[in-house]
């Protein structure tokens, strides 16, 4: 096996060892006590070549039911939304995804400006004055919260990918500006007076404050914040409204159709955005198994978290659901109800 990520040739190794005055790379590990030196080789599978990797992981991916191939009504925190094609093209620029935290602003203006724009967009959407550069996800943002608006940016340009990585946002009114956790990008000028961006309000960060820090969070979700920025830019002022409006429309349609079905009850009479609760005639997992046969991924089983809501399903209807798919769902629910009522 040759290693395409390892450029050291035999000649390189010899030259470097010789410069160091040793003959074996092993000598560089003489500071490790013999008792803890690992003997033999790690018991993990041998290396796969690239074509074998493709084959193996395509096989594994093929075992998962995905939202390109199924009508999709599952949400409860992670959502199946339209992702503009531009998002992946932008985040696939290696200047973005192979960089780290912009410690050196002179060669990180791209990332810094994109995050500054992200902060602005989050402020616009939340009506807050200041937003940070992202959190792991909505729940983490909440755990770190005080007086403020927090939430998940996953609906903007971030694939569901089994729930992570996602992207949380954290925004506050101006007076709490200096209490916000995580990284923040600020605008300033260089020696020539040219506008530029830097990480700022860093005093609270762990590598300085250590045990006095108010948060231990070090990395953020920069690449996902970038993805969210691109998606918010692509959607823009009109698209964000249209997308939200379509969520409401599709959800209302699904809700009103399901409300008329025998055996189903829309549980709470409250305004809903893109999710609503339905009491189903049998267990939620049984319903979902039936839907899956019809190429539908059904809703979330609320009984998992709220025993009193056993038999209640949280259905999510986004702009990605077509009328045809909603009708298919309704038909499926109807048929399953009939089947429940038939004598065995």
């Amino acid at each position, binding site marked *: 096996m040759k290693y395409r990520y*390892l450029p050291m040739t035999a000649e390189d190794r010899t030259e470097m060892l010789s410069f160091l005055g040793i003959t074996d790379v092993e000598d560089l590990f003489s500071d490790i006590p013999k008792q*803890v030196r690992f003997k033999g080789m790690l018991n993990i599978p041998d290396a796969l070549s690239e074509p074998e990797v493709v084959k193996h992981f395509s096989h594994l991916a093929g075992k998962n039911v995905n939202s390109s191939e199924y009508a999709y009504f*599952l949400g409860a925190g992670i959502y199946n939304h339209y992702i503009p094609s531009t998002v992946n093209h932008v985040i696939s620029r290696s200047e973005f995804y*192979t960089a780290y935290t912009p410690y050196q602003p002179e060669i990180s203006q791209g990332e810094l400006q994109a995050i500054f724009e992200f902060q602005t967009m989050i402020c616009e959407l939340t009506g807050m004055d200041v937003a940070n550069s992202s959190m792991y996800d909505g729940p983490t943002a909440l755990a770190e919260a005080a007086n403020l608006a927090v939430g998940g940016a996953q609906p903007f340009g971030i694939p569901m990918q089994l729930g992570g*990585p996602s992207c949380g946002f954290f925004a506050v009114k101006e007076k709490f500006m200096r209490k916000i956790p995580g990284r923040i990008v600020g605008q300033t*000028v260089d020696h020539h007076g040219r506008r530029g961006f830097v990480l700022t309000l860093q005093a609270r960060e762990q590598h300085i404050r250590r*045990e006095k820090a108010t948060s231990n969070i070090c990395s953020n*979700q920069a690449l996902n914040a970038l993805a969210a920025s691109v998606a918010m830019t692509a959607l823009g002022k009109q698209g964000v409204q249209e997308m939200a409006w*379509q969520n409401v429309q599709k959800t209302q349609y699904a809700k009103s159709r399901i409300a008329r079905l025998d055996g189903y009850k829309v549980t709470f009479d409250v305004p809903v955005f893109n999710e609503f609760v339905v009491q189903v005639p049998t267990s939620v997992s049984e319903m979902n198994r039936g839907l899956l046969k019809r190429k539908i991924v059904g809703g979330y089983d609320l009984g998992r978290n709220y025993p009193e809501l056993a038999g209640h399903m949280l259905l999510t209807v986004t702009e990605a659901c077509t009328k045809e798919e909603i009708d298919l769902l309704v038909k499926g629910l109807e048929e399953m109800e009939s089947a429940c009522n038939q004598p065995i």
Partner: protein
Amino acid sequence: SEKALIFEFSKPGRVAYSLPDCDVPEVDVEAVFPSKYLRQAPAELPEVSELDLMRHYTELSKRNHGIDSGFYPLGSCTMKYNPKINEDVARCPGFAKIHPYQSEDTIQGALQVLYDLQTELAEITGMDAISLQPAAGAQGEWTSLMMIRAYHESRGEKRTKVIIPDTAHGTNPASATVAGLDTVTISSDENGNVNLDELREAVGPDTAALMLTNPSTLGLFEENILEIADIVHQAGGLLYYDGANTNAILGIARPGDMGFDVVHLNLHKTFTGPHGGGGPGSGPIGCKKELIPFMPRPHVVKVGDTYRLDDDRPESIGRVKAFYGNFGINLRAFVYIRSNGPEGLLRVSQEAVLNANYMMRKLAPYYDLPYGRICKHEFVLSGRRQKKLGVRTLDIAKRLLDFGYHPPTIYFPLIVEECMMIEPTETESKETLDQFIDVMIRIAQEIEENPAVVQEAPHHTVITRLDEVAAARKPILRYKSDKVQQKRGEVYEVSTA
């Protein structure tokens, strides 16, 4: 040069999105929501065309330095090559378009990835079990400390103190504080090892754990690791391994064999995450069997030929991250491990360490080397000699930008004056190392002959040094349209040379 903000060339009516027409009967939104819940004015998001959008972000990308742009020896961050195949696999619809609440039978492929990765990381670290839930190293630290707390409490012991060497990452004490524990800092000896006397004095019946990075942030292997483990264990404490520097010891030494009880790993460092401009990362934790009951839930298990999410873990500290961790990053790390195998991982560490020692010895005549020992995958230099000539380490870092390099980590660890922490990684060629060495030597000469050129660096970047003081004193943290000069129609003579 300046670059316009996306808001500055936004224009009403332009779009860069495309949604199907609404295909269901329309209802009045005001009939759904009481108007008090509806925002009155739309959010002022950008209005641009798709070409505007792509040009904007393409230009931003050119103002950013990544590993594919050039050498990036940022110590402690393991800025190694990020394989392209990892990115391709992670974008398969069967991995990208799946939901954590799908029934287990519809995500068997994804669960197998997680299960196999758990198994292989356990082998690599010498631990008995792995949880992939923490989103990043810092969350892994906190998770581990919560498990350590739960472990002690389960034994009826009240242990509140975490001992941390002065070389530790800042996240270690911060995580301890957030986990509700107190920290005790101990110093390092002249060889960069833990000061054993201080450790002996620090341990006691209130010791919850010692957090240790090994190799340390000085790039040095803790030579007394077995004695340290003894001291801590005999006091009833646990040993915690900060895995930021695992890239030095793959297949060479395992935390589990050194006496560590709990570990975290940074998959975006050792296992080619990638770094993403600061995240997302992934910070799995591992532990010895005594601590398994306290691990986060759910845990991926295999029952017969089927993979399941085991949520029935009554002593668990609970869920530490929504869903099951950063699956997309875990998947990339797993592809990397599978692409290397046992021999490949061993070579990774051998060559990372050889590269680091080679650079350290080459640079030692020109910059002070505070610790003369063999280093592991990284090493620290001190710029104190240059400081005497009026040039600070920050200046050296900025001067490196002029040669197309990302500088090393600077001013960390705190115990080394004018510190530079250099981690070449194994994916860099000898030619790259030699060129960087030549530049470092040239800068050392410049400092003697013409310090201004270093003090005023960088000279060739898109902007020069930024006023960070002004940024912090009067923060401008978002764009506001009324404050902004009109950018439209302005013409710049660009310079790309």
